[in-house]
């Protein structure tokens, strides 16, 4: 019952997000870039601009809707990279030999110490500016966290009775990893991933000042939120709505992660 409710809510959020990302024109009435100073800073509830307008007179709702695609791409893309990279490296570290483990751990430590900003700069130099490269930078900077968590869980599980027992049963190493070790180890990693989505969006926006990530004037939640920082005390709606949008996408991912976990069980 409650499980169903949760899935229903999650499904509704996803539907809304997907709709906004795929066909923003359908639900947004205004051009998200066109500024119109005449209608600047209309408060909440203004006729035609129910979520108000920003300092350049752009409709907040339309910007939110149009911001869905880049934001979701950033959030999900970066998370996917961090998750896949982290899980793979974590698996290798946790299941490979001691030397490999030591080597990878050292690499994680260096990567941890390596400033994200420098990584971002390197991405720009090597690949140029752009949304995808920002996503890559953020994803890569997230890898060591995921990898180490994964490694820890793998190590915890790899020697447990039931893994031994399925080895004894004749389950191949690969199947053992995929069926027994991974699903049991994945729990915390999946949670981390679902929470990473929201972080990646805000973090992606923080790189835009270097030309990485969303480019102005493209509407993007993280950017909108960052821009609204100054207006927080006076025009809080400018910050609240992108904040809600990011939170919703994070919540949607959390719900998805939970559903995945339940079905996995």
């Amino acid at each position, binding site marked *: 019952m409650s499980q169903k409710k949760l899935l229903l809510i999650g499904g509704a959020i996803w539907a809304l997000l997907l709709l906004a990302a795929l066909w923003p024109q359908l639900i947004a009435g205004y051009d998200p870039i066109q500024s119109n100073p005449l209608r600047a800073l209309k408060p909440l509830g203004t006729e035609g601009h129910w979520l108000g307008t920003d300092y350049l007179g752009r409709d907040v709702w339309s910007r939110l809707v149009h911001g869905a695609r880049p934001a979701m791409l950033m959030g999900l893309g970066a998370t996917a990279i961090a998750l896949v990279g982290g899980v793979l490296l974590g698996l290798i570290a946790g299941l490979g030999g001691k030397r490999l483990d030591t080597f990878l751990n050292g690499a994680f430590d260096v990567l941890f110490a390596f400033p994200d900003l420098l990584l971002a700069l390197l991405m720009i130099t090597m690949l140029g500016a752009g949304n995808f490269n920002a996503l890559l930078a953020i994803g890569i900077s997230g890898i060591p966290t995921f990898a180490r968590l994964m490694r820890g869980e793998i190590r915890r599980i790899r020697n447990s*009775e*039931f893994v031994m027992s399925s080895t*004894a*049963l*004749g*389950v191949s*190493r690969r199947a053992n990893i995929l069926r027994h070790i991974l699903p049991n180890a994945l729990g915390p990693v999946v949670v981390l991933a679902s929470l990473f989505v929201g972080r990646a969006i805000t973090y992606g926006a923080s790189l835009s000042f270097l030309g990485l990530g969303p480019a102005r004037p493209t509407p993007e939640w993280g950017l909108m939120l960052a821009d609204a920082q100054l207006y927080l005390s006076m025009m809080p709606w400018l910050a609240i709505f992108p904040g809600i949008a990011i939170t919703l996408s994070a919540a949607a991912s959390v719900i998805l992660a939970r559903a995945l976990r339940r079905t996995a*069980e």
Partner: protein
Amino acid sequence: MNMQTDPDMLASIEGLTISLGQTRLVQNISFTIRRGQCVGLVGESGSGKSLTSRALIGLNEAVLVQSARRFELFGEDRRTAREADWRLLRGTRVGYVLQDALGAFDPLKDVFTEVRETLDAHRQGDRTSRRAMVLDALTKVGFPEPEMRSRQRSWELSGGLRQRALIASAIVAAPDLLIADEPTTALDVNIQARIVQLLAGLKSDGMGLLFVSHDLAVVSSIADYVVVMHEGRVVEQGPTAEVLGDPKDDYTRMLIAAMPARAPRGSRLSSVELPPVSRFVSNRTETSTDVALSARDLGKSYVYPDGSRVRVVSDVSFDLRRGEILGLVGGSGSGKSTVVKICMGLVDPDEGDVALFGQPWTRLPERARTPLRPRIQLISQDPLGAFDPRWTVRRLLHEALEIGAVPLRERDGQAEQLLHSVGLKPELLDRLPRKMSGGQRQRVAIARALATRPDVLVCDEPVSALDVSVQAQILDLLSHIQREIGLSILFISHDLGVVRHLCQRVMVMQKGEIVEQGEVEQVFAQPRHDYTRDLLASIPQMSGARADVA
């Protein structure tokens, strides 16, 4: 008599029913336990013994709905008791020995801390007195070198050691009522006798005892009153001598008949129809060797908490011949499970080798071992630990069937058949192992091991959690398969009766060494080694009625 005021009345249960949704798992059970009295709870595996005993300490899962006409402990109604009230009873007034001794300890804590926990939780005594009490309890249950070895964690202990520690933790605070759910399954007959003696002593000091067991001989030696359960109901109850000596109910009668010690060797114990053997025929190419598994000079040592290195297995050599059932008996902690793990290639021996069908096995890399694995299967001593906690029985069996090269579409049907052959209903397919009774789990483990159609089966206490009737069925199954298709079985058991009934040859292990081996009849009839003689002398016998039953 007014029950409320009877100071000797420890527990008084009337009409206890435990249900899960619409199904009643336990129906309308009534019994009483008084000071100095032992109630034996016997019955079919899955009949609700554990649920009943857990109800007495208020620890059944919340989804299981409990109701009773009367449910009194120490003269107080407990039907609506709150968690906080229960807590005050637990440990100090009601001791509880969990059926699953192997998983009952927190693997991250050492045994000493675990045993002391009751005292900690109730803030009894100070540091030194708690320590003394813990060591005392451990000594009482025959835990060797308690001071040093209680610093080990549970997974460093053998099954029997864990079980002894668990009993120690239940009696450490000298409860008025002890609920012991299968407390001797992992104990060799010597230790078992010792524990029974200990419990009897406590009983005569005034402790009440609810003793759940499938071992009728043990029950008969300690219980004053017996309750026989079948499919969630009580089929018969009364003074021990009456019930066991002159059973009225068919089920009780069948139980007693199924005791292997009473049946001639090799004869059928159960009347259940045996499955066709074709299901179990190994489809692997024949190998010419006569010896299925051969162990040579195995040795293994572990480091104990005091830093000493102890050889738990030394110079063990044996051959398991093709189509033979080889028994392995020996004291608890003598290294049987370690030998098993070495044979299965799960633990690397320090010395020695195991060969499988004449081919090297122990020293192979795991990659090379995996393709051979389906041919040799293990039924481990701790079935619960052997299952992926997230997997249902269906998935567990499917996986094993997949390894046994059963095509996907046949797996469901075969899984049901397998369950059937171990006496389980197909409903269990979608159950998590955690939510089954001890005997049901053990049977799933057996079914899983048989699913790959092995040539060699290594059984580490495969029937310890089964009541005699189900045990009979399983033993019949095993000997049936062995006879018909030549399965080779290494069979470890504490139940010498079972070993004698089932095995052709037997080895006796003591302190890591094999002290005697030979034909079963010969070893049992003319034991050569002192230790063997000792063991045989301690076999519990069904005693007749006892005089002091109320």
